[in-house]
């Protein structure tokens, strides 16, 4: 198994495209590299990106930027230059315009378009080149019923728009079927927290029931359109409501035989083995067709979970050592793959070792490559996706859609991930050798 893992890993690694194909991307990476090396600068960058959509003018934007940069102790020359510019109104306007363009460019790296219609071209492009997508509609926090209704409408619109366009896509057998049958071309990820303003950690049933009112019609429509609906997982505060919502709804008589639907398991959670066991039990006992898709991720709310737990004096619900998460990811991968054919496994990771492990493990269990899906995030996992496509593996790229205001929370999280010292991407950028990238956690 380990031999096969290393072989697969090296082969994928060799297929990575050369770095910095795009001059603007090189610039992005330069900025992120600077941020990765200096905690104060990173904080300034995040705070600035975060406030950008709320600024009323270029002048206002520049004032915020200089406010954050002022707090950076050891300033590299470009930052000093920016601060000097901010002394005059004209300088601030220029600085505001340049930095606004910078943020927009960064956002475009991670966010595929402002609306589903905008996204059709890039999505088709990805499909033609061998990668499927799951669309994710970014939005502000839902605090009112009207906002929940609007999000549900946007989901319906995305399903219709995608379904209308997907019929014209060329055939891509790797992406359209596994050994159990056809796979939907249209794939939408939805967030329970956006479907109701009533999610309360201490009263999961209230939010669950309110979200169900909007999720049910979405599932029905997805079934009619032959689309896949994936219910994302968020922080632990919403875990119980989300899990129960999915299992309850998919068990309703009209939804038992479709649509294709999925849930998420977060490997950084200490109790994720129990969560996964519960999902597999559910899948085995319901024998749902099409089978439930289970997307295994590391988890994207690590800082939030740790800070919240520390503020309350709780044991964090997440592993605090990265290698514990990585080890657990591999253990869960195996358990999940063993759950086939009652579930369809999807492995979502940018960690070369985790991906190679999943592929090797799947082969060891005697399964075909097409019975496992590999998922990456747009803007972060593009190179990995290209390498996986080259190996004829099934790849799905998670593509967020939304305007800058809506996308900010997502963008900041992705930037954090991209500048974190322990990330695989950081390692790759620093040119860490493949042996280390593939070392057992």
């Amino acid at each position, binding site marked *: 198994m380990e031999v096969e893992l290393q072989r697969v890993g090296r082969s994928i690694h060799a297929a990575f495209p050369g770095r910095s194909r795009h001059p603007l991307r090189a610039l992005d990476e330069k900025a992120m590299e600077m941020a990765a090396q200096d905690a104060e600068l990173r904080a300034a960058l995040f705070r600035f990106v975060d*406030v950008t959509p709320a600024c009323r003018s270029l002048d206002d934007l520049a004032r*915020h930027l200089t406010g954050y940069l002022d707090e950076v102790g050891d300033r590299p020359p470009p930052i000093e230059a920016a601060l000097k510019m901010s002394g005059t109104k004209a300088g601030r306007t220029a600085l505001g315009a340049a930095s606004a363009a910078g943020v927009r460019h960064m956002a475009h790296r991670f966010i595929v378009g402002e609306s589903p219609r905008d996204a059709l071209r890039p999505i088709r492009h990805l499909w033609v080149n061998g990668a499927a997508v799951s669309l994710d509609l970014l939005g502000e926090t839902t605090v*009112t019923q009207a*906002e929940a209704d609007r999000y549900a409408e946007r989901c319906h619109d995305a399903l219709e728009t995608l379904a209308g366009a997907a019929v014209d896509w060329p055939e891509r057998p790797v992406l359209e079927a596994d050994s159990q049958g056809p796979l939907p071309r249209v794939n939408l990820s939805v967030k329970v927290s956006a479907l109701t303003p009533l999610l309360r950690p201490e009263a999961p049933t209230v939010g669950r029931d309110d979200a169900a009112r909007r999720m049910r019609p979405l599932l029905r429509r997805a079934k009619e359109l032959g689309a896949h609906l994936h219910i994302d997982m968020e922080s632990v505060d919403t875990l119980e409501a989300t899990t129960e919502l999915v299992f309850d709804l998919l068990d309703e008589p009209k939804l038992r035989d479709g649509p294709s639907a999925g849930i998420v398991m977060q490997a950084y959670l200490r109790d994720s083995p129990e969560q996964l066991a519960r999902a597999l039990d559910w899948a085995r006992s319901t024998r749902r067709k099409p089978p439930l898709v289970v997307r295994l991720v590391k988890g994207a709310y690590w800082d939030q979970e740790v800070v919240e737990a520390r503020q*309350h*004096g*709780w044991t964090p619900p997440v592993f605090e050592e990265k290698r514990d998460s990585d080890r657990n990811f591999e253990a869960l991968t195996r358990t999940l793959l063993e759950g086939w054919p009652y579930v369809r496994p999807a492995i979502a990771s940018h960690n070369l070792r985790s991906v190679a492990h999943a592929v090797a493990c799947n082969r060891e269990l005697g399964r075909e490559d097409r019975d496992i899906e590999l998922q990456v995030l747009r803007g972060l996992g593009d190179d990995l996706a290209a390498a996986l496509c080259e190996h004829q593996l099934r790849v799905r790229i998670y593509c967020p859609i939304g305007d800058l205001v809506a996308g900010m929370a997502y963008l900041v999280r992705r930037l954090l991930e991209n500048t974190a010292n322990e990330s695989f991407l950081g390692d790759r950028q620093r040119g860490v050798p493949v042996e280390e990238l593939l070392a057992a956690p």
Partner: protein
Amino acid sequence: MTVTEQPAAFRNEPILELRRAPARESLLQALRALDTRLPLAVPVLIGGDRGATEGIDSTDPGAPERLIARAGRAGADDAAAAVEAAVRGAREWASRPAAERAQILRAAADRLRERRLELAALQVRECAKPWGEADGDVCEAVDFLEYYALQAIALERGPELLQAPGERNTMRYVPRGVAAVIAPWNFPLAIPCGMTAAALAAGNAVVLKPAEQSPGSAGALVEALHAAGVPGDALSLVPGYGEAGAALVRDPRVHVIAFTGSAAVGLEIVRAAGETPDGQHHVKRVVAEMGGKNCVIVDSDADLDDAVPEIVRSAFNYAGQKCSAAARVLVHEAAADDLLERLSGAVDVLKVGQAESFATEVPPVIEREAQDRVRRYAEIAERDGTIVGRAEGGPGEGWFCAPTVAADLSPDSAVLWEEVFGPLLAVTRVRDTDEACDIVDSLPFALTGGLFSRSPATVERVAARTPVGNLYVNRGITGAMVARQPFGGNRRSGSGSKAGGPDYLLQFVEPRVVTENTMRQGIPVE
């Protein structure tokens, strides 16, 4: 008991993880168990002797027919007897080393920890405090005991003074003597516990007069302290109405009055305590925590995704019955329309209901008078402005008030200037944060305040300009934690002391300095 043992460093008692089903179930179980024992008996306790057992009934604000505790009603003569016991008790209690007193307070904290589920359940019933808040209140009570125990040991060491050759200067803090603690019902365990624990930790004897609405929680507190080893004379319990409190305040043998409650009562206490009748050889110290009219400033660059839920929680959790609760929002005109739309929508969906339901966000208010008062202000708001958001009013019986947001009130509306102490929030548009600061400045209160802004310069400017005791930036304005957010107001909101802070115990001691000449025959002998 060893008195040399140093307690471990302070950390806040963790609240229950209510997002986990087993934690919720454990509380519901405790509530069922409590219900079989109601009503609780809370006698007057003077110098360890039980007095009257009747005269005050506390009831469930969500079901006023349900009797929660039957307490003895202490009058002026009981108050006098309790002070007499305290005079005796103070001498003995003060003679113990701080470490020994600390040990006893920490044992009381353990006792509260053991009973934490039951004590939270009691608050749910007696004060209609929702679970999360009730559990937080019990934890805060534990924190006060632990924190002041540690502080008392540090305080006993006294500060270092400058020394010159031939003299030895020492400074020590000694207990003042008898402390009268007059406590409110809205934090029925934590606030009486905090004031009592501080006074005891510093070496004073205490006469505790709890609010007539929550004698049950006060009884549990006194039981824990006595069981832990506080002598009967050093701690008396006199449940009662105004006459017991007034008698304590006027008693010439009382040295410190620690009060938390309304501004009207607080100012009356300050006046009465200022009297120095013949035979009273001291000036009384008043530690007062009073009301507020707390404002949250929302600048144009605020993140409304954060601001809206945090404002809603600050204004409406526990039906706005916290002195720290948000009463006004001062929003930059550029963000006002968005904020109002989202805020009103978020208030529309608030769950009004019984405190025992985990889904409830807004429980009933404490009593009929409170309901009448809140409704009166809501009518004024309707007359003087526009109601932009209102949740359904809740079930029939119980003292429910519909959570309400009002906007565009005429500048002189009483809703903008008087403390409502209920689920009513007023939103005012401002040109900029400077105008918002002017409004904050024009209020007689200065307890808590909030600011939502992402500009470091604005945060610094508002922090420098605002007189409030506790300013919260980009978060809710309630829920101060012991040792992390020492809590207390300025202006007419309080006497400036900070509960749960490093200098709170200084209110309960007097400083003494001894200077000794160490020269003998022209030679320094040290």
